[in-house]
């Protein structure tokens, strides 16, 4: 509850800071505001309860997710330091939108009422539409923002229609208040469940609702691509889990087959689509579709463990993704072609020789995304596979393992390129803050790969 208030207020303060002559103050102030929000999150630790007539539910689980979201935002925002580029021409607006968008993400992980879920998704999505088009002079960015906005608006409409059907069938917006299954209204409940799932799966980029992902990831400025693929995904999956495990748990016979088919589709489209990509950001986009498939696997299993698995998977995925996009941001600004930064895979050619530190960060991130043991990604996959196995869905697991094997091929493309002898770049400058963030994300990936129970035992 408190981070919502804190972030709304500090978002406004950030806008006022934009009036000051010295724009440099906005960045440190925003980081400080995010740290304040992080601190206020823990006021409710060990004091579970409901706020505002059962609108929001706060417990230790949701506080852990708040912390994950806010820390990810801080890590990503750290990369905007020292950039004197077009997307930061109006730093106050940009940092304010980031803080407001976190309000939406926080609502999505702690809602108790579907109105809160809808508002949370909307706040986060509208912020994302704006941030995607933040680089106004980039025609690809404009295209991406328009595509994302139009498709997202339709997805929102479908989600809202599903909620209306749910309300019609049950007479309440509260989740987990003992929904009556069967009878005359079950038809509307099915429609409601299906349409709400479609709306939410669109936001987390699961196939077949993934069509926007490659274009939007490629067109958006890299820092927001990182933001989109970590924070939106984490919040979206928690929201999906909450809806499916509470309200629709009685309908499990109805939706599990849908989720199983979506897992298969996401894994196939994500992994096979990624193989032929030359642009690093498109590769990461397809990889994010496939990771959505892996995270959906957790929903197929026993609900006792699922939230822990989703939490672990989102943390390791977030750490690896921030590393990967961070390296891309740092390296790509060294090579400008036709006025744009160069973002193809062969940008990383000879990185190991040129800058060993960045190459190590990139390699560990790629290994973790591919799920190689001794990195966090291995345990993330292990936990979701175990969840799915507990419900006996072995055909889905065999599919997932096969697709992980394909994933190794395309994740190794940038790794092998970075090992090559010939380098296309001169020296690369990294500012100390970026170095610090890389150290955190890489260290985190390895620690979670060796001692996964540090995080897993929280639940």
């Amino acid at each position, binding site marked *: 509850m408190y981070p*919502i208030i804190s972030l709304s207020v500090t978002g406004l303060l950030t806008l006022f800071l934009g009036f000051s002559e010295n724009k440099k103050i906005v960045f440190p102030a925003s980081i400080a505001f995010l740290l304040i929000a992080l601190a206020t999150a823990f006021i409710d630790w060990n004091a579970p309860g409901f706020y*505002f007539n059962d609108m929001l539910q706060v417990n230790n689980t949701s506080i852990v997710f708040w912390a994950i979201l806010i820390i990810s935002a801080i890590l990503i925002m750290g990369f905007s330091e020292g950039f004197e580029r077009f997307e930061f021409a109006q730093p106050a607006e940009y940092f304010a939108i980031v803080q407001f968008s976190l*309000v939406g993400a926080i*609502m999505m992980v702690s809602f108790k009422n579907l109105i*809160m879920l809808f508002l949370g998704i909307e706040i986060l999505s509208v912020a994302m*539409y*704006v941030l995607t088009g933040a680089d106004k002079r980039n025609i690809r960015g404009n295209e991406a923002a328009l595509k994302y906005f139009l498709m997202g608006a339709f997805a929102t409409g479908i989600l809202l229609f599903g909620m209306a059907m749910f309300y019609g069938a049950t007479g309440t917006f509260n989740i987990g208040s003992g929904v009556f299954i069967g009878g005359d209204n079950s038809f509307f409940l099915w429609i409601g469940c299906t349409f709400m799932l479609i709306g939410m799966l669109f936001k987390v980029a699961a196939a077949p609702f993934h069509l926007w992902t490659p274009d939007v990831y490629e067109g958006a400025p890299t820092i927001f691509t990182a933001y989109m693929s970590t924070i939106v995904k984490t919040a979206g999956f928690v929201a999906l889990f909450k809806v499916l495990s509470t309200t629709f748990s009685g309908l499990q016979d109805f939706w599990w087959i849908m989720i199983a088919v979506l897992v298969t589709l996401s894994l196939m489209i994500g992994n096979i689509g990624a193989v032929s990509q030359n642009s690093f950001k498109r590769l990461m986009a397809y990889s994010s579709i496939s990771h959505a498939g892996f995270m959906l696997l957790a929903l197929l299993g026993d609900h006792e463990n699922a939230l822990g698995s989703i939490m672990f998977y989102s943390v390791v995925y977030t750490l690896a993704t921030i590393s990967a996009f961070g390296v891309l941001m740092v390296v790509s600004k060294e090579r400008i072609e036709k006025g744009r930064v160069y973002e193809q895979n062969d940008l990383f050619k000879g990185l190991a020789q040129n800058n060993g530190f960045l190459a190590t960060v990139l390699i560990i991130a790629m290994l973790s995304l591919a799920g190689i043991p001794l990195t966090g990604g291995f345990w993330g996959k292990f936990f979701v596979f175990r969840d799915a196995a507990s419900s006996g869905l072995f055909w889905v697991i065999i599919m997932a393992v096969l697709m992980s094997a394909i994933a190794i091929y395309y994740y190794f493309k940038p790794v092998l390129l970075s090992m090559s002898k010939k380098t296309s770049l001169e020296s690369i400058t990294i500012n100390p803050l970026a170095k610090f963030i890389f150290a955190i994300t890489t260290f985190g990936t390895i620690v979670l790969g060796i001692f996964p129970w540090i995080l897993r035992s929280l639940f």
Partner: protein
Amino acid sequence: MEDWMNQLDWAWLQWLALGIFGFGAVGGALYLFFTKNILYGAYGLLTSLISVGGLFLMNGAEFLAVSQIMVYVGGILILIMFGIMLSAKGEKKEDALKVVNVNSLVSLLFAAVMAGGLIFYSVKMGGSRSLAEPSAEQVQDLGMSLMTTQVLVLELVGVLLLIVLIGASYIAKK
């Protein structure tokens, strides 16, 4: 006797109004579907939307009627009008925006299925559900609950609209 007469007159008037609004809603939509002139189409949509607002009013949903008129007629339709005015800038008549119906068969089929489903379910549920008695304090109750039990929703809608405003100015600014 006097009372009974009054009641009869009232019921007759109610049915007439319901008929007019129903005819307006369907007729406006059909006109929009078949017309070739986009501006006339917008007027057809206007008729249809106002009539739907009237239907809400006839069924005791005053707040819904007012918001229908405010949002659709006052907001969205004006946007459509501006869109037409700003984009149809041709010198000759042929340069004006052309209206082409794509997939009219599929969309008619879809509409028929939707209408069939709605009629089926409203007939099926007709006996089991009765309309809530319209109360004079409906809007007042809504306002009270928005300021007391639902106040978080109100505040967060404020945050959403603020983002939209910032985003619009951010995108539009040079």
